[in-house]
């Protein structure tokens, strides 16, 4: 029983971390079809935002509260610049976008290395989030619970924005049919920029949250990126709920593999599970079925 609850919790926890990292991607990749390899570096920027804020503010609790919105702003601003300078001009070349943004990611990593140094830095956890809580006989770290909560809040916020705000409706309209939306007077350029801002901002928030459970180095973001992409691929493009289910499922898969083998085999296991899964559902869990060529 304890083992099962423990595993379930580990799965959910890993899943919520994956989800936080992948949520922004499910907007930029899932909704816009842009493969932004620098997304990981936006996460890394969020981590360093938390670090810098804490150097200045001192108090861990206060600085976390400042860093969360600031991380969103930093990530979002970087996303806006990237979109305006490069991605906007490459919408019809998705694979080239991947390589271009990889180059951007390399540069951003080196900037971090030059500014903060290559060794990892640590952000101290606010006292309120230290220690654990007993849940059904298992001790659960509070930081993990906080990240789960944050993931739920972020997903809900994105879903609500997409569904109920005028901006969200515009995003969905452009995703559904770019040309039609243009004719209806929606500036798809503004919508793309807006979507990218939100998606990249979420990466910044994820970065701030990740400092609670690990140290920060220039390559921090990169280590989350591939898993985050897998979540979006497995979840199906264009669907937030796909990303949620896929993140939890991948988190659970990894947790199970890790229990019965090693962490390194778990990675391989997750990869095999995804390849097999794509045999069954090549378009991911949830798809927008439309009439289209191939």
């Amino acid at each position, binding site marked *: 029983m304890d083992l099962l609850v423990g595993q379930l919790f580990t799965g959910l926890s890993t899943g919520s971390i994956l989800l936080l990292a992948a949520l922004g991607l499910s907007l930029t990749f899932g909704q816009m079809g842009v493969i932004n390899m620098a997304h990981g570096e936006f996460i890394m920027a969020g981590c360093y935002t938390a670090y810098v804020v804490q150097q200045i503010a001192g108090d861990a609790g206060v600085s976390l509260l400042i860093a969360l919105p600031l991380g969103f702003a930093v990530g979002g601003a970087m996303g806006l610049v990237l979109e305006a300078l490069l991605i906007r001009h490459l919408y019809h070349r998705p694979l080239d976008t991947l390589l271009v943004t990889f180059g951007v990611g390399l540069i951003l990593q080196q900037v971090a290395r030059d500014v903060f140094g290559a060794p990892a830095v640590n952000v101290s956890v606010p006292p309120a989030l230290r220690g654990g809580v007993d849940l059904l006989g298992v001790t659960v770290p509070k930081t993990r619970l906080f990240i789960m909560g944050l993931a739920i809040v972020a997903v809900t916020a994105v879903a609500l924005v997409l569904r109920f705000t005028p901006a969200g409706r515009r995003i969905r309209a452009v995703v559904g049919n770019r040309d039609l939306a243009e004719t209806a007077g929606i500036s798809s350029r503004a919508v793309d920029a807006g979507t990218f801002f939100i998606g990249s901002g979420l990466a910044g928030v994820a970065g701030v949250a990740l400092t609670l459970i690990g140290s920060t180095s220039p390559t921090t973001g990169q280590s989350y990126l591939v898993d985050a992409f897998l979540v979006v691929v497995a979840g199906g493009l264009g669907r937030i709920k796909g990303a949620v289910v896929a993140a939890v499922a991948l988190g659970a898969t990894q947790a199970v593999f890790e229990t019965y083998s090693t962490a390194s085999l778990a990675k391989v296991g997750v990869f095999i599970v995804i390849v097999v899964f794509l045999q069954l559902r090549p378009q991911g869990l949830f798809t927008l*079925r*439309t*009439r289209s*060529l*191939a």
Partner: protein
Amino acid sequence: MNTIALTCTDITVDFDGFKAVNGVDLELARGEVHFLIGPNGAGKTTLVDAITGLTPYTGSVTKDTPGTGAVELRGKKVHHIARTGIGRTFQTATVFDNLTVAQNLDIAAGAHRTPWTLLRRRRHLPETVTATMDRIGLTGHADTPAGILAHGQKQWLEIGMLLVGDADVLLLDEPIAGMGHDERETTGRLLHDIAADRAVAVVEHDMDFMRAFASRVTVLHAGAVLATGSVDDVSTDPRVQAVYLGTKETADAHTA
């Protein structure tokens, strides 16, 4: 001898509850240029997608080939269906832009080639390729990259690719879209020429072109067959007139 080449029975395509094609029966006969018409969203292209294996459906499609008999196509893969002799074109002519006209046709002629043949260089063009280039009027463009052909020439090339591939059921999606008057005439004659020993189905919006060249017409509306028959039968059908009220203007707009 208008033998039936393709029989569709009770085809239904369901897009998450929306029935894009709903219980369609259709027969395509050799020797006929069979037009599929209908307003936008009537399910014409979706029907072609279903027959060619792109879209899952319920019902049955059987292909009759002299000598081999009837084969059920439902559930087969796209390339297997193509190999039974079903060829299709797309709304926007899809050819290999970076290859020459001759190379395009040579590829289309070679689906049955062995790996060994594929791995060697082409020494000379197969006879069917040169003959077809002649037939579609592109002999002078044999070494032209397909990407720089005129719009109409691309459509002809795509039809030519089906011919060299030995397709005997041709499903053509708007083959005269964007063509000028002379080009349409040429295309119409080409369609009748190739229909001599094949079944040709044409998805079209252009009513004048349909009246001029259709041997038979099927009208689709909201995913279902509204009427089938000769041009005269169909154009006097009151239900068709109801759906097509004001069609003349639309057709003119389309032409212009």
